[in-house]
């Protein structure tokens, strides 16, 4: 009966119902919206902290250089999520003239180095981890006119992939897919004219928006991975080679990591009087400041509504009850209990509150989303790409901000706040400590060989067997029959050769009395395409294999069985165990480019104790 009376009163007193419900609705709406915006801002702050790409950059001070070895000092002992580096290949250029597309006369190379010096200059060559991370490309000053840009996937083309400037392409009529030469002055041999020429495939041609007067200042770009290989495969943390770098970006875990990062680098021996570590994440600060402003406004609105709105609600509620006093007295005189009257009024209030609060919460949520949407489209959009940051055009403005931040955007939402950046690939850094073992795996086919180690049916007609290559940073930790030290002490040890270990049960396991090392030939697929130019053949196998012509340079790799391993959790049966450097050699030489496969210097890390 009470509920019936309550609903009848609500229906018969529409203005009172609507007015009171509206007051509650507005208060709840404002409180919900402001509270949700407040929470969204808090959430956005957390998300920003967690997902922002905090980048510390290694830059040189005036009249000094950043060397490759400095990178190692920064990475050792530091927790780094990714790394991007660019280096001017000071000892490599694209030659001009006829040598741009043709090998120089190989017969004249050793004896007439002076002729080689006479080659016209083509353009400088830069090596980069990822072309999209190079500032002019990142900022849009340079755009790819034709073809594609270098990406991480281009790390190990057998022919180095190259992106050349428009002027070089126009001057020599070069298009995407053409082959050009890269002249490389071997480290340590630059005084005796020991040059080598490497074929590179042009995969992209870029153009500059504002062309300068001297177009030859625009370099060609190739990947650091390939350049690193050509600098005798000095792996970054160990290198002592004075390779001059243009810049290095380190992706840190968080804003607070920078202090530790600098301290560790300094403790490792980084000379901070020669180089500087820059940490200018200006967009982060701008976004944070804007978020704080919005949060303050939301908090103010919330507290205001909380005090004023609740006061108004209490006033209306009391007024509502007061205006019903005559009704209350009548109902009591008619025999309704005082508790019954109160319950009836409570029902009325409860129904009004239920409807108003439900609507208020729903509309408040939508309003909060609307506010977030407005904030995203205006305040944060401006903060994400402020005019000042937009106008920073290149690494000249390096000290002011990180150009990487130009495309970082914060999207605030009530339940789903995101920080989006351009799809940039940072080569992940995976560096094992002393008690850890770095591992990579790859399945490759090898060709069946006869007892002399040469393909039984010839390379073209041979039978290929897939096997898993297991690469480890420290083969000794796995338990091999010939230690790394013993291997290097052998008289016939060749640093350019690839050595491998097979299972003790393998038919290829060395037998007592064997005087030579068994050789297996690996290919990237089972097609048996085997043309290898002299230079690669020397490096990989010690002697030329087969030569069909320079235009066909897909390869196979010869690897020597140096010893055995005992079957373990990492490798067993037909698996082949090799050291990580040889794995990189093999990978690069075979130009492995399976669809979707991305090369990683080290795939994953385990604790050595896990092998026990």
């Amino acid at each position, binding site marked *: *009966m009470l509920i019936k009376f309550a609903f*009848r*009163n609500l229906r*018969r*007193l529409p203005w009172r119902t609507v007015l009171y419900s509206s007051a509650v609705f507005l208060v709840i709406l404002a409180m919900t919206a402001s509270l949700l915006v407040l929470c969204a801002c808090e959430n956005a702050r957390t998300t920003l902290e967690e997902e922002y790409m905090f980048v510390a950059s290694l830059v040189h001070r005036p009249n000094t250089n950043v060397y490759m070895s400095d990178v190692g000092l920064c990475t050792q002992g530091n927790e780094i999520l990714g790394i991007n580096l660019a280096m001017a290949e000071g000892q490599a250029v694209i030659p001009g003239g006829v040598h741009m597309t043709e090998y120089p006369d190989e017969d004249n190379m050793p004896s007439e180095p002076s002729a080689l010096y006479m080659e016209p200059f083509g353009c400088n060559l830069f090596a980069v981890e990822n072309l999209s991370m190079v500032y002019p490309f990142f900022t849009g000053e340079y755009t790819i006119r034709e073809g594609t840009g270098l990406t991480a996937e281009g790390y190990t083309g057998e022919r180095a992939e190259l992106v050349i400037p428009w002027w070089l392409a126009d001057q020599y009529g070069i298009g995407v897919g053409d082959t050009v030469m890269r002249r490389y002055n071997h480290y340590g041999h630059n005084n005796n004219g020991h040059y080598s020429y490497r074929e590179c495939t042009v995969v992209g041609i870029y153009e500059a928006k504002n062309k300068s007067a001297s177009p030859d200042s625009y370099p060609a770009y190739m990947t650091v991975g390939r350049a690193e290989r050509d600098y005798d495969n000095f792996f970054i943390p160990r290198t002592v080679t004075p390779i001059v770098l243009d810049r290095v970006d380190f992706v840190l875990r968080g804003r607070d990591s920078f202090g530790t990062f600098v301290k560790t680098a300094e403790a490792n021996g980084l000379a901070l009087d020669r180089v500087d570590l820059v940490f200018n994440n200006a967009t982060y600060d701008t976004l944070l400041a804007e978020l704080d402003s919005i949060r303050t406004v939301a908090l103010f609105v919330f507290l205001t509504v909380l005090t004023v709105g609740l006061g108004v609600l209490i006033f209306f509620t009391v007024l509502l009850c007061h205006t019903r006093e*005559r*009704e209350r*007295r*009548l*109902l*009591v*005189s*008619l*025999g*309704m*209990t005082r508790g019954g009257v109160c319950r009836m009024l409570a029902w009325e209030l409860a129904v009004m509150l239920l409807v108003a609060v439900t609507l208020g919460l729903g509309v408040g949520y939508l309003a909060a989303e609307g506010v977030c949407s407005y904030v995203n489209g205006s305040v944060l959009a401006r903060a994400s790409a402020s005019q000042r940051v937009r106008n920073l055009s290149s690494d000249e403005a390096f000290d002011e901000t990180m150009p990487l931040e130009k495309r970082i955007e914060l999207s605030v939402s009530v339940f789903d706040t995101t920080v989006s950046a351009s799809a940039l690939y940072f080569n992940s850094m995976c560096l094992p400590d002393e008690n850890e073992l770095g591992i990579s795996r790859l399945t490759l086919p090898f060709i069946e060989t006869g007892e002399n180690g040469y393909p039984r049916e010839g390379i073209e007609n041979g039978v290929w067997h897939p096997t898993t290559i297991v690469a480890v940073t420290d083969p000794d930790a796995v338990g091999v029959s010939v230690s790394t030290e013993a291997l290097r002490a052998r008289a016939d040890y060749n640093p350019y050769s690839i050595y491998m270990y097979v299972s003790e049960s393998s038919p290829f396991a060395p037998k007592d009395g064997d005087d030579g090392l068994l050789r297996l030939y690996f290919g990237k697929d089972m097609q048996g395409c085997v043309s290898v130019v002299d230079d690669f053949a020397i490096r990989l196998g010690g002697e030329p294999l087969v030569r069909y012509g320079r235009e066909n340079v897909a390869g196979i790799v010869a690897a020597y069985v140096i010893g055995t391993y005992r079957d373990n959790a990492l490798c067993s049966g037909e698996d082949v165990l090799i050291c990580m450097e040889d794995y990189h050699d093999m990978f690069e030489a075979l130009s492995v480019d399976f669809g979707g496969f991305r090369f990683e210097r080290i795939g994953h890390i385990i604790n050595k104790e896990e092998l026990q």
Partner: protein
Amino acid sequence: MKILDLNGISYDYTTKAGKVHALKEATASFETGVVYAIVGRSGSGKSTLMSLMAGLDVPRDGDVRYRGESLLSMDRDRYRREHVGMIFQSYYLLPQLTAVENVELSLELANYRGNKRARAEEMLTLVGIRREQFRKRSTQFSGGEQQRIAVARAIAADPELILADEPTGNLDNENSMNIVEILTELAHRYGKCVIIITHAAEVAERADRVLRMDDGYLRAE
């Protein structure tokens, strides 16, 4: 037949000016089929007496008995629902309800077991409200009509005791006489005990017995 007894009831209340002795040992008996008028000056304690008789309040001293049973030992809400019909000077109709719903309200509260709507319409007809007016909101009626609706509401649950507090206070002479006539008929024809509190002499003249409140004392005239 005696229906209500007042046995030496006293009642005090406190105002800013001090303690007021509203009733002083009031004693009286009321019977069915009789119209009583309680007259007196403003502030003489008439309305206080009515509250005590309706069980809306309890006396400091003394006892109100309904058919020999003290109200103090009764469920007074139920007493009002089932045995008392009240009429007020300001009608006290609920503005959000129609005429018939106002009457039905008392039936619903009294848990009337019959057809509430038919009973409400019967009562409205009895007090002279036309059928076509039944579904009009109470605010759309004249003062006299509203009071007649209030009378219908008071008698709908068939109470034996009808308490009317200045029922003609807001009405013109003609409407006043109509109301008094209805109340008189309720007593004489239907055997109700009707107690009218009034300061109108012409209303008191129509009552069967008159009691006077004077400075808290209740005396028969």
